[in-house]
């Protein structure tokens, strides 16, 4: 620092002397020799080159801004091949060719399940390569011991598609086709489409930015390097001007010096800014546009020359109109307003602080900070409960309360069930008087008893369930919550006692109940509980501790309807354990799988396995295709109870 000051002082003195010599010619009788001037000119040129070099090695810096306009990208099931394979076969093979071994296991299982082979025949078919028509896939699985050739390993490292990866893709496809998965809707690209890969990178960036902008509210000041290298212009002009003996060129250096001096400012005092945010309406219906108005005011005494602001739009909401970004200059007391629209989503959404970047007039220093309004802004969107007309897929298990679940027990009701011999004490109204008139025998009519059930709706909100077929669409968790809210309303209307729980979230629990107050509580919980909030990335937990807690809360006769895409083995285990523990389980499973990549096809196969296993264990599963509505999916499922 002291060196800099010294140089600056000497420079100013020299400048003064130069100007003085100009004002009073002859004041300094310096007979500067021609060769000295040439030397100094060369020196200036050399210094200019050095500055330019320095600029090349020190890049400009600027704050990165968040991308709050869009929700984070939705992952697809089977985004990672290794995770999908590990779900089939969690063995930790130490060899380089782990994937091939795992694929062999998958192929064997598919052949035994879908071709009816026993395991030995299936293995033989794989060894001989007769299990599929695809020669690449057949050969890929046939030679287990072959390692990757060196060239392929290199090409894998370099990112190109090698024979190895092609083999994996073709094998996955052959396995999926053997399992009856329709793989025709893929676009012919051997790997996930480039747009998908690029898109997911975008999405990941967006998620990262969003997190960093909110997580780091401490103000930081940095030098932007915007004017770095301007002194080279001054030096070059002086060097060239002196060497060419052109006074006009030397004067150009004055411009360069002026800019270098103007960019010298290294400090930036903290601006006094206030923001105010209003939302209209604050309690919208789903998909209703909400107008957000953000006003930023300069409360300080100095002008803010360069203000860049990105509003903290809640993660789950997407901006549909306008931009939540503003760039402006503010005089003291002045304010600027930015207006944009977001589409409402189910849930309670709190706005984060606005990310604010302030620069000096010259732009050489940048300060990054977060600014929050005095009061937090929230949008609460509680969708109405919409019952469905389809019968809800409950299993037959009566309780003592009258309701609408058809039981396998005869008694009092509406629908004819059976007749039996009269026992004394039967009510006169139920004696079959027609038969008595015909035959003289006394028989009692029995009607199908309709009783209410106690049902707990359990929503899978694990990380593995937060997937969907399209990046900018719903996740299976959102589908599950929507379905749960519809079934909640329907079951309550039918006179059942209904409760709500979320997989792995102990605080998300509504004990089974009935009545209007319960209905309102359930609606609030489904709409606004943080565990079910859209845009949240739930942690992946093994849910068995939670399962024990749930079992202690469940009433003994409660049924469970589990909403899950069945994308992880743990959920299927939960369903089986609940069922084995005496709670009749039904699974409603939105299907988020895609067959766009080999890994996606394998994930589809894995999900089919899980559904088949659950059904084999006597647990009904509603396989709900993504494109269908819930009532249609329920109507299309035949109930074997």
């Amino acid at each position, binding site marked *: 620092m002291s060196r800099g000051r010294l140089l600056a002082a000497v420079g100013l003195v020299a400048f003064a002397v130069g100007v003085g010599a100009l*004002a009073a010619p002859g004041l300094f009788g310096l007979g500067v020799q021609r060769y000295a001037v040439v030397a100094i000119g060369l020196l200036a040129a050399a210094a200019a080159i050095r500055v*330019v070099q320095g600029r090349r090695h020190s890049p400009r810096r600027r704050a990165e801004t968040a991308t709050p306009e869009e929700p984070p990208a939705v992952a697809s099931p089977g985004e990672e091949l290794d995770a999908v394979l590990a779900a089939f076969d969690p063995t930790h093979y130490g060899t380089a060719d782990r994937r091939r071994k795992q694929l062999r296991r998958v192929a064997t299982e598919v052949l035994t399940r879908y071709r009816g082979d026993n395991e030995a025949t299936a293995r033989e078919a794989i060894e001989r390569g007769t299990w599929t028509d695809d020669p690449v896939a057949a050969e890929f699985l046939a030679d287990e011991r072959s390692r990757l050739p060196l060239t392929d390993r290199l090409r894998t490292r370099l990112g190109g598609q090698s024979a190895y990866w092609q083999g994996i893709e073709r094998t996955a496809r052959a396995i999926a086709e053997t399992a009856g998965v329709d793989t025709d809707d893929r676009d012919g690209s051997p790997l996930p489409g480039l747009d998908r890969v690029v898109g997911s990178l975008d999405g990941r960036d967006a998620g990262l930015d969003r997190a960093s902008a909110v997580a780091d509210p401490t103000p930081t000041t940095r030098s932007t390097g915007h004017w770095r290298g301007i*002194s080279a212009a001054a*030096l070059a002009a002086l060097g060239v001007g002196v060497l060419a003996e052109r006074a006009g060129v030397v004067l150009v250096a004055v411009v360069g010096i002026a800019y270098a001096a103007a960019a010298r400012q290294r400090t930036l005092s903290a601006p006094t800014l206030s923001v105010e945010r209003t939302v209209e309406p604050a309690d919208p219906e789903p998909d209703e546009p909400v107008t957000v108005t953000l006003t930023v005011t300069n409360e300080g005494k100095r002008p803010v020359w*360069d203000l*860049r602001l990105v509003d903290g739009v809640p993660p789950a909401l997407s901006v549909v109109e306008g931009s939540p970004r*503003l760039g402006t*200059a503010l005089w003291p007391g002045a304010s600027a307003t930015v207006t944009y629209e977001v589409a409402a989503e189910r849930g309670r959404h709190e706005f984060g602080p606005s990310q604010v970047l302030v620069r000096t007039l010259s732009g050489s220093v940048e300060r990054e900070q977060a600014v929050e309004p005095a009061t937090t802004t929230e949008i609460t969107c509680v969708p109405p409960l919409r019952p469905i007309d389809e019968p809800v897929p409950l299993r037959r298990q009566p309780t003592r309360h009258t309701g609408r679940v058809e039981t396998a027990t005869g008694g009092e009701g509406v629908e004819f069930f059976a007749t039996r011999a009269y026992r004394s004490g039967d009510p006169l109204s139920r004696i079959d008087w027609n038969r008595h008139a015909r035959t003289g025998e006394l028989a009692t009519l029995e009607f199908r008893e309709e009783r209410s059930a106690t049902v707990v709706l359990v929503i899978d909100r694990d990380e593995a369930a937060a997937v969907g077929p399209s990046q900018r669409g719903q996740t299976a968790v959102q589908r599950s919550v929507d379905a749960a809210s519809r079934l909640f309303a329907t079951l309550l209307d039918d006179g059942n006692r209904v409760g709500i729980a979320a997989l792995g979230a102990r605080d998300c629990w509504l004990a089974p109940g009935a009545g209007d107050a319960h209905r309102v509580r359930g609606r609030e919980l489904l709409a606004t509980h943080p565990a079910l909030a859209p845009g949240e990335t739930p942690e992946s937990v093994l849910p068995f501790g939670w399962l024990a807690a749930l079992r202690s809360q469940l009433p003994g006769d409660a049924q469970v309807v589990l909403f899950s895409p069945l994308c992880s083995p743990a959920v299927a285990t939960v369903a089986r354990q609940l069922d084995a523990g005496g709670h009749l389980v039904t699974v409603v499973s939105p299907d988020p799988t895609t067959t766009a990549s080999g890994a996606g096809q394998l994930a589809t196969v894995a999900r089919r396995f899980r559904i088949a296993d659950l059904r084999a264990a006597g647990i009904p599963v509603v396989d709900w295709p993504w494109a269908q509505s819930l009532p249609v999916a329920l109507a299309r499922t035949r109930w074997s109870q």
Partner: protein
Amino acid sequence: MTGIDRSPTRTGSALAVLAALVALAAAGAVSWIALAVGGVGVGLVLAGVALARHDAVSTGAAALFVGVLAAGVQGAPVTALLVGAVATVLAWDSAGTAIDLGAQLGRSATTARIELVHAGGTALVGGLAAAIGWSIYQLGLGSQPLTVPVFLLVAALCLAGALAARGG
């Protein structure tokens, strides 16, 4: 909606290209070398704001500046040199600001106010410096062909060194 458009902002890009053209006209009117080198510079600045490349903008601005110096060596009037130099710096500055603003706020945000205020500040500094330089020249720098430039040179070197020592 897929991502936001983070390409350089329109106002700043237009300002940069306009300033680059002014610099080219000021220097190229006198010297063929300036016209050729400066033409390449304008192209690079244009490419830089189109592709959001700081390096292209800087190289383009450097080429424009070399053109201005060449015109000066070939005897261009001092007014043209000063206008050319200020316009070159303005082009470089506006293009850099447009790229940064585009990256931080995107094209759809309202940013014209920042860009105009910033360019105004830059033009003001350059205008003042040019006015001082022009006054010095008018006062008769030619009568002191060596003493004054040498002291200005030393001053500039020291000032630049001072700035470099502070990381500028």
